[in-house]
């Protein structure tokens, strides 16, 4: 079994980018990425290697993103200690900000699928993370990319 610290360092950026794709909000993305790793840390002893560790981590991350829907809206967003809450990043700018915004306008599951695709995961792995067939993933990715390309036609550099 891999060491948690190793996993954390290896996957932090990738998980954060996925969350950013889903949420389009740096502080919230950081928050959900942290929740993901808290879960990874808790569940790691039970991880039996039935899938690749990456697939497993991205499953947890995707589910944490979707879990934001079910979250009690009356509660403050995070119960995290202040010292890590405050270190959030400046919002991205330019073309990448436009990409995040374009993705954030997609449906919830499309946001996850395209973020995983852009993160470079094979479509078979995306299918196993999301729980739909590979063919379905392929079709969805194709449609999403069309939508994004269409949106970028209106990008004027701001």
């Amino acid at each position, binding site marked *: 079994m891999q060491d*948690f610290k190793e996993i954390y360092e290896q996957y932090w950026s990738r998980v954060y980018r996925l969350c950013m794709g889903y949420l389009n909000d740096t502080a919230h993305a950081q928050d959900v990425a942290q929740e993901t*790793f808290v879960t990874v840390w808790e569940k790691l002893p039970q991880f039996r290697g039935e899938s690749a560790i990456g697939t497993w981590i991205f*499953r*947890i991350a995707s*589910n944490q993103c979707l879990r934001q829907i079910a979250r009690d809206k009356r509660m403050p967003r995070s119960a995290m200690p202040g010292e890590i809450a405050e*270190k959030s990043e400046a919002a991205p700018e330019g073309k990448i900000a436009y990409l995040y915004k374009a993705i954030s306008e997609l449906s919830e*599951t499309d946001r996850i699928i395209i973020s995983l695709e852009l993160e470079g995961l094979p479509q078979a792995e995306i299918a196993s993370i999301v729980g739909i067939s590979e063919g379905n993933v392929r079709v969805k990715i194709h449609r999403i990319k069309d939508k994004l390309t269409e949106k970028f036609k209106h990008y004027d550099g701001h």
Partner: protein
Amino acid sequence: MMDTDDELKQLWDTGVAAPIPDISALLRRAGTVKRKARNKMIWGNLLLVLTSIIIAWVWIHYQPQMLTTKIGIVLIILSMAIYIITSTSMLQFLFRDEPDTDTASYLAQLLRLRQKQEYLQKTIMTLYYVLLSGGMALYMIEYATMLGRRYGLIAYLVTFGWIALAWFYIRPRTARRQLAPLNEVIRQLEQVQQQLKG
């Protein structure tokens, strides 16, 4: 202008991640959440014990003679116990999810949990009111007869006026306040589930 898939991918890769938070801070966070849940549970238990002690004291101190009073006391304790159990984290084990299954199963799981929660909230609230008012009615018989017909009647009127207010006004309002966000979550989850089918 975005021409190819590769460009999207290259652009995505320029997204800079936030600096990695210190691992000890992360693990402290895991601890904090657990501790909070545990504290809530401890408080719930304490309240429960305290309520039972007070009622037991009433029982011993006033030595009720009639069976109705005793049944009444038991029902009131039960209603309070149910209230405390559900309002603290004691039922958390019912709502545990498995965050490492695939998204489609996870959504189904979340949906099931929320529906269960909705059902439980409705049922428990009704049960709470029925047990509490039933318990009160029984409990009061002995003392109301001691008060004589007139004052006994007044005591019953006041008590049941209050219970009626709670049942017809406070209960539906609380239910609406608790269930509205839950129903909204259920609606959204169903919508997301549909996206995967499409």
